[in-house]
Each structure stands twice: as structure tokens, then as C-alpha cells.
């Protein structure tokens, strides 16, 4: 069927209206407005809505594209003439020497940026102390003089030379004396220079003046054995060590060497051999050495002599009047010490920190009884680190007073600050015509001199050192002199018209003549190895055979003289030591290992005694010495401080150190006195409340570990029975995990820290500061608890009460309240725990960061992407170890921190491999990621896998005691893998299963059975 239906489109079509017919002729029923759109009217004037949207879209797109332009590229200019062996980005290492220790100086593009110990060096195991680590900053100290000065104004070297030579000739003609005052000189070349100088000016004499002198020991050895030397002590050969106030791990003679020796009998290797030395310390203030002792008893300075006498009497069985009647604990520990020392005859060592000749003679007698000479004390290979004689400087002052001295030179010596009677010295100095200082800065003494012939920093200088018999180290410059300075030796050579004024040549000639000739080594090889050791001389045994008839009464009398008022002990603390480096911001901000105080010294008082004096912590008190000198300082309650005593550190109160060190703390040197011809750092004082309070800037304000198992310790007896003792490793338990296991197919970087090796010195902290460009924040910010250190050392006190360790706040409070046992707070034990980012495999910081700024690597590290961080601080809150540090301010460009590291010049010390962090960004230990990366690249270049030991952390490298081991636990042969297998290994807070990457080894104390130490 055919359909003839017709469909119509509209009524118009049906009706066929004329309009429709007309329109239907065209293809488009209505004409399209093409013309209209394309003519001008369509293109301009009113913008239709659609066009508006189009324009918007285009505009937005265009702007977005334009904004996507990359960050402008700043091109650095390559060397025009590339120095040989300098490859940008690749460090060069040079051997040099600091304080007699062979070191490696790391330079980048010509600037020294880091000091490492020479791994082959003999003093510190490749580790260094905090001072050495921080010394690189002194090179960039903006407070140093830039030119030599004459009468306080800038002068040229030729003017200086003309002036000094003229004056010297006048002095020579007048027959007056010439004196060179110096800290101990053990540099053979310097000695030779002075000898040459003396040849020209025969009235010249060197007066050695050390801020802290060891005259007592030297004189005592002269008296006892006819050898006027500072012996080499061998703590590594001692099974029993008794120290009377000698802080040999912190500040005494050569602490980094002693630390290395001491720890070798207490570390993991030693424990595995079931051997551990025993260390008994009797001292006034709590020293770093005291914190490491197995038994420590506080004694007053007045009792220290008695204690040594008592020990002598116990050892020799000589009956005497009962001693130490007022200090039963000390009397008991002396008895115990005598017993143990005798058992360990030949492997025993007794040392005293006293600078008194009589005391040291008695100590010699004791060591002789114990057979220490030839075993633990070596008089034939003596130390040359301190050779000062206190009497000589006193004599110099009288010479100056008699106007016999015409010219005086100060080399590395600043008696106007550190001589106990600085006024007598400065008054006398005014009578000297020519006063020349070789200081780097206008320090307290240089300010009194006509000429400051600024010396090189040791990193700019040639030189050598001879720390102990047979050990010669070379100092070679790592950078051209930055300022218009000249080496002191060159100045002396110039002024004495020496034929050789090039000191490099002079040192080399001197070596060729002496050491090299004797050993057959070449100069070139020395510049590569850094030192020459001519070997040990045969060690003789010495026996003490003199009468002690005069010695004992002298000691007793001294003790009696001290036993009045409040007894004062003046000591060196570990960060600042004698105050020479007071302008070093890294050292000022390094917390004292014991008190954790930065940026200040203070009056340390035992809590009980403080209460008795009606003092509260941080009260300001005025301490007045017998000589009328007084200082006002805040009080710090120091557990373990002897009752009735106070301690104040030297090294503070500098007035002309520079921007950083000026006015930090108060000077305690003037409290020292001269007794029996030596300077002694104790005295009697009175204390008065000065009114007011000053909070000290402590990095730790809670001091006990509250019985928590973050610290695990045991005794050596327990350990010997069961190596698992204290580690909590007994028995297995099943673990359940919420999270998937992280795959670490390549490396798994971890760390092992031996609590038994760590002495708490803090050298790792400074090493980390220098390596990782850690900002210095200053006293005020530390007080606000905002120091930036990536690694810290937690120090906890625990009190031993009836054989139990009391660590909890409330129990300590009860102990303090207990009136029946007034001294029960004295029996305090200390543990040091280095704490840094644990690089947890299930890191709580990582899950909470909103922007993924902190993430995990496939090598077990917890990374921090600074550029991504928005600074919510959630990660730091959620970190159970509280090791994350926030940049509260822009430390690199904020006027309140300008004294520390803001000078453009000072910032040359920054490690170019590590970025500085802007404010508002979180940071923390990266496990020296730049070093890991460097080590991996090196291995790749050499087409080999990374070897264990290729990569070392900055903290690990600085540690003299090797307490920190880093490595790849996926490599079963690695040191760290072995260390972590130890029965002593535990993980801090392992129970919350964040799976930390740092294993700690249980602290072992070699304490005897409880009964014997009871007070």
C-alpha cells in the first residue's frame, strides 16, 4: 500500500501562506546574520555573555600559562683559571693539627668547612672533642681584627716592623729584658724561631703561662723522680681508676685521648671479653668524668687532701689519725678503693686534679705503691701539652714591677683575662715599654698592648706540634690568609732579621733537620699522613722513696685553711674550657654535659645545701671570695655537688672576646689563689642573696627518667651472669602490626649507640652543627626551649637509695624531704643518652603530615622535604622522641640572631651540600643524607657496591669513644649489624612499635654489691 499521507511542519505550511512560500524558496528559512556578525558592529561594542565567557577562559588560560614560566636561572661563574685539584662540589681534605691532634680539614672550593680527626692519628681515634669541631668557626669569626694595629689604630706591616725593631733595639741597648709570654709551646719550629730570636736578642726569655696549669704535677714529678714532666697517663691499661677531682674525660690534660683509652675498657668489645674497668671518683662538683664513674662520692675541697691521705694510709697499712670523720661515705669509698686498687696492682691508676705539689707528691707515692709507673703512668714518653710553671709568671710580674722588662710579647696568651690576679699583671704591664700581642682579636691583653700583630688562624698557618714524646704533627694551611694577618713566627723572624722569613720554608727546614732526618721520611709524605711517630721510648719503672713527713701536714693544713665558710671549687666546663674560644657561638650553645646549661656560668649548689641557705634555683647570689672579688650569678641546683660547697666555671665573663662571647657569664679566674707556689682553683667564699632571679638557658629541665625503660641499665655483675640483663630481651613475644612491612631491598641505614661508650662530651652535637648548618639561636631562645640541635644528649640523674635506683619525680621529692638522711641526695648516678631522629620504619611523623613533606625512603630513612613543609608542627607533636626542630624565626636573616651566624663572612663556614632552612619549616636529623649520597656516588663512580665504613655520620666521626656506629643492616657483615646483634641492644620506646632505626646498648655500671657503697 502506498502511503500518501502528508506531514506538515507547521500551520504555515498547511495553509501555504504567502510568507511561507516566499521564505521556503531559500535554503535557510531565515537569513543568517553572517554579515552582521562579521561587520564591525558585531565585533565590538557590547560583549555578549558567551564572548565574555570565552574571553574569561582565554584570559585565565593565558595567565596560567604565563605564570608557568620556570624560576629564573642564576648562573654561577666558573673559575676563570681553575686551581689545580679544586673541582667545584668535590671536597678536598688536608692534614693539619689542632691542639697537638692530627686532623683532616675538609675544604670546599677553597674554604675550610669541617674538621675531622685523622683516623690514623694517635690522640683521639679519629674522633675529636667539641673545641676542635667548633674551631673551624673561629676562622670566620667576624670579631677578629682585620689588620694589625699600632696604638689602637690600623697600621701597615712595614710600620709595625719598623716600630717594633726600633723599640727592640732600644730595649737591647738599655739592657732591659725581653719576655715572650705564651701558652705552652710544643711546636719544635716555634721553639726554634724563639731560639733564633733569642740569639739576636739575648735577654729574651719565654714565660709559659697556661690559663689552667699543671705545675703541681710537673713539680711533684721533679721532686719525686727528678723528672720535671707531665706524664702520659694510660687509662687503657688501668683496671681500677681512682680519680680525686680530675675531670680526665672532660677537661683534664688531654681528654679526647683519655676518653679513647678509658672507653676501650668499657665498650662493647671489652664487655664481650667480660672485662670492664672500675672507676671511682671523689670530687666536689659533678664533672663529666664523675657522671661516668661507677662509684662517685662528693667530697669538699678541704676533704680531698684528707681522702688522698686516707687512701695512702689504707694502701700502706700505716695507721694514722682517723680522717674523713665528717664524710662517712668518702671514708667508706676510700677503704673500698684501697682494697680494689691493691687487688689490681700494676693495673691501677690514681689521679688527682689538684695543682698542688704536695698533693701530687702524695699521689705519686700512692701510684708507686700500686706499681703504676711503667704500666699506667709513663714518665719516659711524657706529654708536652702543658709545660707551664706558675712561679715563672709570678716572677715576671715582679720583674715588670721592677721595670726590668723592656719588651713583652704575648703569644696565644691572655693573662689580663685568665690570670687570677689580673690587676697585678695589668698594673705591672703598664711599666713595660713595648707590648706586642699576637692575638687574632683585640682581646683583654691585646687592648693593653701598643702593637697587635695579628696572627693567622691555625687553618691559615704553617706549623707543627709535639703533643707527647715522639708524636710530631704538622699544621698546614687550608686557605690563604683571609685578613691582613701574619704568622707570629714570621713576625718574630722578621724582627730578629732572620735569613729565612718564609715560615713554610722554615718549618720544612726544621723538619728536614730533625724529625725527617731521624725517621727517613719525606716532607711530602708527612703532608699526606699528617704526623710522624718516632715510637715509644723504653718505659722505666719508678719507685717513690722520699719521706712524706712534710707533705702530709702541708696537705692537712691546706685542708684546714679551706674548711670554713662555703668552699668554692673553680672548674673548667667542657664546652668553653679555659675561655679561649668564648667567641665561638657553637661552643656557647653547646650544653654543658652535666648541667645542660648554655650561654652562662652559674653557682652550682647541692639541692639540700641550697635549701639550707634558703635559696631557690635561679636565684641571683653574690659570691664573695676571700680576696674581696665578687660575682653575681644565678644558682643551679646540682645533684652530686658536695654539701657546703659551690662550683663556678671559668671561661666566662670575657669583656673583649667579640660579639658572641662578651658579657656571657662572669669571670671566675680571680677566685683562684696561689698556694705553695702554684695556682689553685679553690677557696672559701661567702654567699649572699643578690635579689632577683635569672633563669638559666638549659636544654633539659627535667632530670630524671621516671623509671621509664627509655634508659636501660644493669650492673657488670649482672651482665657477667647474663648478657641480656637489663635489655628486656628475655623471651620472645609475638608482635602484631597494623601496617604493612616496608621493603628495603637495597640499603637499610641504621645506627647503634652504645650507652656504655658514650661519655656525654657533646662533640657529636658540634660536629652535627657544623656539618648540617644548624642555626645558633642564643640564650633567650634556648631559655624558651627552642635550640635547634639535631642531636642532643639526654642526661638523667638517678638517686641510689638502699641499693635501689630512685628515678621518679615523687620519690625524689620524698628523698629530698627526708630529714633523717640529709645526704641521701648525694649518691647520684648519671646516664647519658644521645638522642636524634630514630628514622622509624613506622614513623608517626609521616602519617600525620598533611602535605607529605616528611616521607620514608626505600633505604629506611625518614626524609624531610623542606620546600614542601607548610609548618603545621603536627609531626613534631606526634614524634615520641621529640627530635624534630622547628624554625621559629628566620635565623639566617633576623636581627635578633645577627650576632651568631649572620655575617656574610661567617656564613662561609656553611656546608654547601646542606641547604639552610627558612622560617616556618620543620627540620631534624637527616642521617647526613648528603654523606650517604656522596658515599653512594663515589661507589658508583668506582663501579663497586658501597662498603661498610665508606659512609660515616658527622656525629659518629667526631666521637672519640666510637659510641655511635652507622651502617647498612642489610649487610650482615657490617659493624652496625654486628653491634645490633648484641644482647645489650634495645630500642627506645620499642613497645609503641614505631620501629625505630637506632638501637641502643644497655648501660653497664661496674658497681660493687650494694652494701659496700652504703653511706
Amino acid at each position, binding site marked *: 500500500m502506498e502511503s500518501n499521507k502528508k506531514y506538515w511542519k507547521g500551520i504555515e505550511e498547511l495553509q501555504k501562506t504567502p510568507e511561507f512560500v516566499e521564505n521556503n524558496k531559500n535554503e535557510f528559512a531565515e537569513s543568517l546574520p553572517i554579515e552582521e556578525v562579521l561587520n564591525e558592529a558585531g565585533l565590538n561594542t557590547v560583549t555578549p555573555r558567551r564572548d565574555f565567557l570565552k574571553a574569561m577562559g582565554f584570559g585565565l588560560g593565558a595567565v596560567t600559562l604565563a605564570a*608557568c614560566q620556570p624560576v629564573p636561572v642564576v648562573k654561577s661563574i666558573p673559575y676563570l683559571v681553575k686551581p689545580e685539584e679544586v673541582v667545584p662540589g668535590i671536597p678536598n681534605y688536608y692534614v693539619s693539627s689542632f691542639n697537638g691532634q692530627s686532623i683532616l680539614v675538609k675544604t670546599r672550593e677553597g674554604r675550610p668547612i669541617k674538621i675531622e680527626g685523622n683516623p690514623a692519628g694517635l690522640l683521639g681515634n679519629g674522633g675529636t672533642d667539641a673545641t676542635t669541631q667548633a674551631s673551624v668557626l673561629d676562622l670566620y669569626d667576624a670579631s677578629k681584627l682585620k689588620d694589625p694595629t699600632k696604638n689602637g689604630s690600623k697600621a701597615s706591616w712595614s710600620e709595625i716592623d719598623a716600630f717594633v725593631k726600633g723599640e727592640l733595639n732600644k730595649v737591647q741597648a738599655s739592657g732591659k729584658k725581653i719576655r715572650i709570654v705564651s701558652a705552652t709551646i710544643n711546636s719544635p719550629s716555634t721553639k726554634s724561631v724563639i731560639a733564633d730570636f733569642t740569639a739576636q736578642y739575648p735577654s729574651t726569655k719565654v714565660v709559659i703561662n697556661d690559663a689552667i696549669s699543671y705545675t703541681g704535677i710537673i713539680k711533684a714529678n721533679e721532686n719525686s723522680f727528678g723528672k720535671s714532666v707531665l706524664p702520659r697517663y694510660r687509662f687503657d691499661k688501668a683496671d681500677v681508676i681512682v680519680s680525686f677531682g680530675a675531670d680526665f674525660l672532660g677537661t683534664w690534660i688531654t681528654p679526647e685521648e683519655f676518653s679513647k683509652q678509658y672507653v676501650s675498657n668499657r665498650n662493647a668489645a671489652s664487655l664481650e671479653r667480660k672485662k670492664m674497668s672500675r672507676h671511682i671518683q671523689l670530687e666536689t662538683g659533678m664533672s663529666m668524668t664523675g657522671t661516668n664513674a661507677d662509684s662517685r662520692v662528693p667530697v669538699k675541697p678541704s676533704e680531698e687532701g684528707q681522702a688522698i691521705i686516707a687512701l695512702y694510709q689504707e694502701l700502706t697499712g700505716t695507721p694514722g689519725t682517723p680522717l674523713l670523720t665528717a664524710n662517712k661515705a668518702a671514708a667508706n669509698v676510700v677503704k673500698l678503693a684501697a682494697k680494689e686498687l691493691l687487688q689490681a696492682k700494676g693495673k691501677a691508676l690514681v689521679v688527682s686534679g689538684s695543682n698542688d705539689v704536695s698533693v701530687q707528691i702524695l699521689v705519686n707515692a700512692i701510684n708507686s705503691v700500686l706499681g703504676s709507673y711503667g704500666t699506667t703512668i709513663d714518665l719516659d714518653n711524657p706529654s708536652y701539652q702543658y709545660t707551664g710553671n706558675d712561679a715563672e709568671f709570678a716572677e715576671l710580674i715582679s720583674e715588670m714591677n721592677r721595670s726590668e722588662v723592656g719588651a713583652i710579647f704575648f703569644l696565644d696568651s691572655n693573662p689580663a683575662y685568665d690570670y687570677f690576679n689580673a690587676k697585678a699583671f695589668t698594673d705591672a704591664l703598664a711599666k713595660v715599654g713595648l707590648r706586642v700581642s699576637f692575638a687574632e682579636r683585640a682581646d683583654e691583653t691585646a687592648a693593653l698592648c701598643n702593637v697587635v700583630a695579628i696572627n693567622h688562624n691555625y687553618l691559615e698557618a704553617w706549623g707543627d706540634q709535639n703533643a707527647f714524646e715522639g708524636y710530631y704533627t704538622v699544621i698546614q694551611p687550608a686557605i690563604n690568609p683571609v685578613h691582613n694577618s701574619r704568622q707570629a713566627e714570621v713576625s718574630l723572624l722578621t724582627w730578629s732579621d732572620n735569613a729565612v722569613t718564609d715560615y713554610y720554608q722554615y718549618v720544612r727546614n726544621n723538619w728536614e733537620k730533625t724529625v725527617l732526618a731521624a725517621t727517613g721520611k719525606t716532607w711530602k709524605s708527612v703532608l699526606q699522613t699528617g704526623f710522624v711517630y718516632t715510637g715509644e721510648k723504653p718505659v722505666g719503672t719508678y719507685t717513690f722513696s722520699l719521706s712524706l713527713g712534710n707533705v702530709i701536714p702541708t696537705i692537712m693544713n691546706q685542708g684546714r685553711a679551706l674548711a670554713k665558710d662555703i668552699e668554692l671549687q673553680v672548674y673548667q666546663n667542657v664546652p668553653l674550657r679555659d675561655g679561649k674560644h668564648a667567641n665561638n657561638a657553637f661552643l656557647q650553645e653547646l650544653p654543658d654535659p652535666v648541667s645542660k646549661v648554655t650561654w652562662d656560668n652559674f653557682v652550682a649548689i647541692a639541692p639540700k645545701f641550697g635549701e639550707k641557705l634558703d635559696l631557690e634555683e635561679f636565684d641571683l647570689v653574690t659570691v664573695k671570695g676571700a680576696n674581696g672579688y665578687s660575682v653575681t650569678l644565678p644558682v643551679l641546683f646540682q645533684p652530686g655537688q658536695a654539701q657546703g660547697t659551690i662550683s663556678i666555671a671559668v671561661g666566662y665573663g670575657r669583656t673583649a672576646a667579640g660579639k658572641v662571647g662578651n658579657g656571657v657569664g662572669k669571670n671566675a679566674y680571680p677566685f683562684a689563689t696561689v698556694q705553695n707556689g702554684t695556682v689553685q682553683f679553690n677557696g672559701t667564699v661567702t654567699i649572699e642573696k643578690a635579689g632577683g632571679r635569672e633563669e638559666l638557658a638549659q636544654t*633539659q*629541665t*627535667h632530670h*630524671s*627518667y*621516671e623509671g*621509664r625503660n*627509655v634508659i636501660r641499665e644493669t650492673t657488670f655483675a649482672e651482665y657477667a651472669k647474663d648478657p641480656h640483663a637489663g635489655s628486656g630481651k628475655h623471651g620472645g613475644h609475638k608482635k602484631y602490626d597494623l601496617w604493612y612491612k616496608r621493603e628495603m631491598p637495597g640499603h637499610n641505614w641504621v645506627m647503634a649507640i652504645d650507652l656504655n661508650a658514650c661519655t656525654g662530651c657533646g662533640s657529636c652535637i658540634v660536629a652535627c652543627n657544623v656539618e648540617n648548618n644548624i642555626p645558633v639561636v642564643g640564650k633567650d*631562645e634556648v631559655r*624558651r*626551649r*627552642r*635550640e635547634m640541635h639535631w642531636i*642532643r644528649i*639526654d*642526661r*638523667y640523674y638517678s638517686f641510689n637509695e638502699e641499693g635501689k635506683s630512685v628515678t621518679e619525680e615523687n620519690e625524689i621529692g620524698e628523698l629530698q624531704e627526708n630529714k633523717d638522711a640529709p645526704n641521701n641526695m648525694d649518691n647520684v648516678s648519671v646516664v647519658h*643518652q644521645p*638522642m636524634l631522629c630514630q628514622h622509624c620504619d613506622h614513623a*608517626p611523623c609521616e*602519617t*600525620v*603530615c*598533611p*602535605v*607529605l613533606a616528611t616521607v620514608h625512603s626505600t633505604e629506611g630513612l625518614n626524609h624531610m622535604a623542606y620546600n*614542601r*613543609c*607548610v*609548618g*603545621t*608542627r*603536627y609531626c*613534631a*607533636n*606526634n614524634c*615520641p*622522641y*621529640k627530635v*624534630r*626542630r*622547628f*624554625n*621559629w*624565626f*628566620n635565623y639566617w636573616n*633576623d636581627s635578633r640572631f645577627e650576632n651568631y651566624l649572620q655575617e656574610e663572612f661567617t656564613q662561609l663556614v656553611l656546608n654547601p651540600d646542606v641547604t639552610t632552612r*627558612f*622560617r*616556618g*619549616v*620543620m627540620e631534624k636529623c637527616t642521617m647526613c643524607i648528603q654523606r650517604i649520597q656522596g658515599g653512594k656516588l663515589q661507589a658508583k663512580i668506582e663501579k663497586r657496591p658501597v662498603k661498610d665504613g665508606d659512609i660515616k655520620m658527622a656525629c659518629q666521626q667526631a666521637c672519640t669513644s666510637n659510641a655511635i656506629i652507622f651502617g647498612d643492616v642489610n649487610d650482615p657483615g657490617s659493624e652496625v649489624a654486628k653491634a645490633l646483634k648484641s644482647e645489650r641492644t634495645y630500642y*627506645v*620506646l620499642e613497645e*609503641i612499635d*614505631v620501629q625505630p632505626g637506632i638501637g641502643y646498648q644497655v648501660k653497664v655500671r661496674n658497681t660493687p654489691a650494694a652494701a659496700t657503697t652504703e653511706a
Partner: protein
Amino acid sequence: MSSHHESIIREPLVTGDNITYARVTNEVLIPVENKPNKAWWIGFTVAALGALLWVVAVSYTFWTGIGAWGLNKTVGWAWDITGFVWWVGIGHAGTLISAVLLLFRQNWRNSINRSAEAMTIFAVICAATYVVSHMGRPWLAYFCLPLPNQFGSLWVNFNSPLIWDVFAISTYFSVSLVFWYTGLLPDIASIRDRAKGTRRRVYSVLSFGWNGSVKTWQRFEAVSLILAGVSTPLVLSVHTIVSMDFATSLEPGWHTTIFPPYFVAGAIFSGFAMVQTLLLIARKVLGFENYITMFHIEAMNKIIILTGSIVGVAYLTELFIAWYSGAEYEQYAFLNRVSGPYWWAYWSMMTCNVISPQLFWFKKIRTSIFWSWVLSIVVNIGMWFERFVIIVTSLHRDYIPSSWVMFHPTIIDVCVFIGSIGVFFTLFLLFLRVLPAIAMAEVKLLLKSASHQAKKKLMAEGKVDPVQAQYYKESLTKYDSVPASETV
């Protein structure tokens, strides 16, 4: 809504005689249509100075760094997040009143929901300022948004409760704003109809062309219900997520599964307290006694006592669980709260939040305007302390004793907080001037059914059971909902 008669025994929701639709409009719009009086100016000046203080304090923080605050290496959050949680909590009452009570047909919400919702929005704004200003680098706050970027696969961390927060708060803010604005439409239209000149044009735009047709009303009702449905889960979710900032961490004292319900209860608790603080004054100053009656005040006080008790039980549960868990760090965290150096904060919290609301069991206190206001302030203080206790006393002494510290606020911390209150009141006072503080349209719905005059009329007409009428009259005196003169 409910235009049917309601039972005579219910208390009236609108009191007063001769309340007509026109009168409602006239009374509610007095502050909107007239020049502000002296009291407003004084209040506004004080609030604006506070807001200025906020601008100064926050600018100083932005300029120098977060170091301007008293935070330190151990306590990374203190007044900032305390303030944040406090404000977010306060914001909760608004949504609860507007959404949950709507769904439950609680008509008494009609006269308070407008202000409560405005309060919510302003409180969430205050909270949001803290979110940004507590960041170390606030100019990078957009990193927290999952924006497509040129960094390849770099995305936000969806594991982080802070990201959940970003979503929760922004959702909450936008939904609350839409809900509030939708409710405003008929009222804005009323203002428009009465205004002239520029004002009229402005309100005309703001009214989105509301024409009052039946269809418009019908859609309005539908949208309100839908939005109420959307908002209701938010009442629970927002503070649950805020609590997860703490609960999902491993800080002792934070790591607690009880936090979500406890935080929600606390939020409602503090929100109602803030509504009381604001409305007790607004009611008096603006003459809204007929619309916000003693019944309303009492009802809110009852919610405060309920939520306050829930919070109290939560506190005790925390203590019990800390002891029962045997977990060393947990136990110490709570011991430290109770007896540590910040004991005063804990006991302030306990007193303000647990003990003082219990006073509302007394009818006298519950129906006293003075005491209601005082206690609402006490609760506000207590809830601030609750957050301070949770945040600071947990952080300042956690796992490793060497890091234990004290937190001391700086003057900037204090200024930012006081300033945020200034910002809040500035916004609230401006709101009172430009928008009706009471939802007129919704109150008008009640006139025929739930007002005192309607009930009187019913009784006069003798259409109610005399026993019930007697009960009603008695209850009026008993509960003094209506001034004695009006009771018959």
C-alpha cells in the same frame, strides 16, 4: 510547617498579647531598619578594637614567624589549636539547632536558629583563621588542598587527619552558609518589601527574587529539609574529625578512642553556652523577650546539663581507662593532668564543665537569666581549658622525660586569642544590623498554634479540656514562662 493546633499543655513558644505578623516583622526589624543605638556602638567599638588587635597580632606573627608565640620544641601546639578547637566546637550549636532540631520538629528552634547559625558561621571563620595562622608558612596553605599541580604525582597526604580537617571544616562552612542563607531568603524579601532606594536594590539582589508564591514556599520547605538532612551528619562528623587530629596520634592523652563522641558532646555543650551568652543579651537589648522566652532558655540549659554530664562522664572514663589500661605513659599523662604542674588547668576544666552545669538541676538557677548567663560564660571558659588541658598538658610531658617542658604563652598568643573574640563579635554585631536576628517567617508560623495568645483564645473559646487548661495555667506560673500579669 506545623500550622495545626498543638496540645494545650505545651508551653507557649511566643508570649505576649496582640502579636500579629506585622508586629513580628516590625519588632524583629527594629535593629535592621533603624540607626544603631549607643549600646551597639559601644559594643561594636570594643569588638572592632579587638578585631584590630587580631590583625596586629597575626600580622606580627606573619612578619616575624611563629616564634612570636610561646611554643617550643616539645609543645608545638598550644593556644593556636586550643583556640581552633574551641571555635569549631562553638560552631556546633548552630547546625544542631537548625538541622537536627528541624528534623525532630522541635519548633522552639524557630526563634533561635538564625542567630545560632550566624554564630556558627562566624565561629568557623574564627577557627579557620587559626588553621592558617598557625602554619609556619601560611602563604603555602594551599598545599593542603588537593589541587592539580605541576609537581607530577605530588598530592596531599590522605592519611593525615589535618587533611580530613580541611575537608571537614570547609564542607561544614559551606553547607552551614548555604543553609543559613536559604533560611534568610523570605526574611530578606520582607526587608526588601519595606525598604526604599539603594537599600531596596541591595536587598532585592540578596533576596534572589523571592516572590512569596506558594511554589516558592513549597520549594523553600523542601530545600530546608534537604539541607537539614545534609547538615545533620556534619554535626557529628566535623568534631569527630577534629578529635581525630588527636585520637589518631600516639601522644599519651591524645591517643584515645573515646574522643569522637566526647568531642561532639563537648562541642554541642560549648555551642549552646555561646548561644546563651549571645542571646540572653540580644533578647534584652533588642527586645525579643516575646520570641525568646524562658522556655527557650530553659530548654537550652537542659541541653547544657545533658551534654555537660556526657563530657563529665567522658573525663571520668578517661581517668578510669588510663588506670585500667596499665599503660605507663597513659597513666602518667593523666596523673600529670590531675596533679602535674598544670593541675590548675585541669581543675578549672573540671569545675567549669562538670560541676557548674550541674547547678542547672535547680529550677531556680535554670530559669534565672543572670545565672544562665554567668554559667554560659563559665562553660565557655571551661571548654577552652578542656582543649588547653588536652593539647598542652599532654604534649608538655610525653614519652621522653628529657624533653619535658613548660609552656608559657606570650603576649602575642593572648592577643591573637582575644583578637579572635573581637573578630567574632564584630561580625556578629554587623549581622545584627543588616539581617534579622530572628527568623521572622518561621516565628510567624508559630503564632497560630504555639503562641500564648492562640492558646488563650482556644481556652476562651472553651475548646479545650478544662483539666488541661488548668494544667497549662498552672505550668505557666510554675515555670514562670510568662509574666504573672499575662497568665490568664
